[in-house]
């Protein structure tokens, strides 16, 4: 398993925070409430550690927006909405009454856009900072257990390192809080690491 040093981790966090910040800005434009997004932690985990980490979600169905990317580093980012969070977030954004957990196709469309905004924010931030062009696939919406979303739905062996980003959203006016989990499955963290090292070198200069 690859380990990021402290500096690399800081850069990564910085890039993610910038991306999350942009996403929050866009979401605030879409709704009349102020949506606050925070990143309590970022972890690099082995698949087994990730299983342990996401055990709380258990065998419940979760909604996820996945975005594939290719370029200097390739992989897949998945924004996972635990059922409670998905419902709260959609309700707030659309002004619907909260408490309707069902995700019909209209609400799925909304959730897709939220996922798109957050993922684009982060990916755009990374892309901008790394000054590298990345090709993206169309975002895909899926509902399944976390295990199947991350580990089974692939034709290739799972990566040995997974980046877990915990994002907390807060809508203070409504006293609503929720969690979003961003999982980065990067095929070769080595490439990302080298890119980060490039940035590190530039800072050093």
């Amino acid at each position, binding site marked *: 398993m690859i380990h990021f040093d402290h500096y690399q981790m800081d850069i990564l966090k910085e890039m993610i925070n910038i991306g999350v910040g942009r996403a929050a800005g*866009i979401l605030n434009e879409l709704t009349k409430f102020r949506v606050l997004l925070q990143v309590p932690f970022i972890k690099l985990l082995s698949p087994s550690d990730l299983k342990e980490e996401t055990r709380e979600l258990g065998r419940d169905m979760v909604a996820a927006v996945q975005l594939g990317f290719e370029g200097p580093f390739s992989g897949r980012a998945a924004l996972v909405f635990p059922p409670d969070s998905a419902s709260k977030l959609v309700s707030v*954004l659309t002004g619907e009454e909260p408490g309707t957990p069902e995700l019909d196709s*209209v*609400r799925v*469309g909304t959730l897709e856009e939220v996922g*798109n905004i957050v993922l*684009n924010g982060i*990916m755009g931030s990374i892309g901008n900072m790394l000054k590298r062009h*990345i090709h993206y696939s*169309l975002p895909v919406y899926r509902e399944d257990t976390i295990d199947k979303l991350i580990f089974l739905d692939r034709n290739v062996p799972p990566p040995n390192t997974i980046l877990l980003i915990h994002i907390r959203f807060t809508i203070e006016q409504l006293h609503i809080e929720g969690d979003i989990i961003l999982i980065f499955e990067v095929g070769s963290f080595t490439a990302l690491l080298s890119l980060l090292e490039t940035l590190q070198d530039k800072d050093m200069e």
Partner: protein
Amino acid sequence: MEEIETLESTFGILDCIPLGVFILRNDYVVLFWNRYLEEWTSINKKNIIGKDITVHFPHLKEPRYSSRLQDIFYGGPPLIFSSQLHNHIIPSLLPNGTLRIQHTYITSLHVSNTPDFYALFAIRDVTDLTHRIQGYRAMRDQALEEIRERIHAEEKLKHAHAVLELRIQERTADLVSMNKKLQEEIKERKHAEEELQKTKTYMESILTNALDLIITIKKNGTIGYTNREIDFETGYRKEDIEGKHFLQFIPEHLKEFMMDKLSELNEGNSGIYESQIIKADGTHMDCLISQSAIQGSDEFLVSIKDITARKKMENELLKVQKLESIGILAGGIAHDFNNLLTAILGNILLAKMYVMEKEVYNNLIEIEKASLRAKDLTQHLLTFSKGGSPLKKTLNISELIKDSADFAHRGSNVKCNFFISPDLWPAEVDEGQIHQVINNLIINSIQAMPTGGVIQVRADNVTIGPGSLLPLTPGHYVKISVKDTGMGIQEEYIQKIFDPYFTTKPNGSGFGLSTAYSIIKNHNGYITVESRPHSGTTFYVYLPASPKKVPAKKEEKRLISGRGRILFMDDEEPVRIVTGKMLRHLGYDVAFVKNGEEAIRAYQEAQKSGNLFDVVIMDLTIPGGMGGVEAMKRLCAIDPNVRAIVASGYSNDPVMSDYEKYGFCGVVSKPFTIADLGQILHSVFTRTYE
């Protein structure tokens, strides 16, 4: 233009997919506009391609779009504008006038051989989908609401149910308690009802078995209840009485009296009094009425006792008492009369023997006749004498009835029809008295039919049983009935006709029926009457039948002379004088005494001197001195062989009919004739010598 034509030829295929597709350059100039968008927006390709899209759709310049589109023109990740958050990127109207709902994907499109990127907009029409989902949501929300309401209702129901359960439990507990109480009350009430029923049955039994007729009378006078289904005394059934006014059953002459009695009840006074009620057959029944208020009711209790028999007995008793007192008086008068008549008749007889002149003789005959009528009158008076007993003989009274009736109606305009049983039982009667009774009854009937008619005389054998209402000892009787078709007797007189001196006839003595009554009473019989005004009258006479045989007829009296010494005792000097003359005329030697003491002394002296009396004739009653019975008792003590004859004007005295019991050998009734004296002395002497 070349750029646009190239794109047109490259993306012309996008005209064929059911999406709105357009391509935008980073300066917002439209490079491609497919056919669907033409159709949706009615903006022809020619009018928009190569032009700034914000001319038609200025909102795309807004930060919410432009900030995100910005990355696309640098090859950034695809964008999604969801239908829910944006509704539509390219506003376009549907045929129904509403805006088409759109879900838009925007991807970067690299421009060959350049670092530039176009933005490829792919717009999906999700109007129908959205509406369907909204409809579904509405349905779902409604369903959820209904479910919520139902759950709420169920919860309320559960709560209500729980409350109800609690109430039911409380109520059940109350009911159990109440039920227990009720059961106890029912038990108590049942017990009370049973007791009441027992009392009711008991009372009903008392009422039903009461000898009296018991009724209740309401304040308005109607009868509410009667204790009898059928009342045999009155002949009424329950339905004849109940609901009727009580005055209906009261004789006219008593209605006012009964109204007064009812008023007294209304004032709260109870009472017992005698009255009469009309029976079902129209006759009147004597009754004792007891009336009182019923406590706790506005009705009155009236008990009616049939006292017909008692009244009858009372009337009988009253009659007897009346007759007894009259009898005492009559007895005294008769005694005196008979003494006088003894002297008169004796002297007439003697005078007739010695008179030579025919005219004087005829005058004596007239005097004798008048004296004999006077004798008859004293005989009537004697009938009322106290304790008077008839001188009875066993007779077949058929002839006596016929002879008496024939004798009585002879010369009248009335005919007598006889229906006399051929095997009529003999009766022990005083022939003269019964003759007198029949005579009186026939005379009464003749007088009831002044214009003539038929009298029906019947005589039958009857047996009186123990249950009879007649005041007779059970046994065999000869029943004589005398029926006329005359004017009848008025009701108010019926009770009085047997009273002495009661008469409705101007010249009547009032003795006829009272004598008949007394005679029959002294024969231990009974006389009664049935009469209705204008329907005739029937007298019924009951005489006890005798088991004895009828003796042969005696010979007629004749003057029998004799010899012997006679002691004659009588307080009346005229009687002593005339009797002395008659005895001497018959050939007897006679001595006289005034009373019993003198008689005993004379008898004792005669014994001492050896000049004995053969027969002593003694008056039964000596006012203020010793009478015949006591004197006889003493004489028997002196000389058990003494022979004595009792003489009395009280022919009905028991001593006269039962003289042997008192030691006498014979009896002679005053006024006696010389023949009577000769016959009785002859019989005493003959008996002595036999």
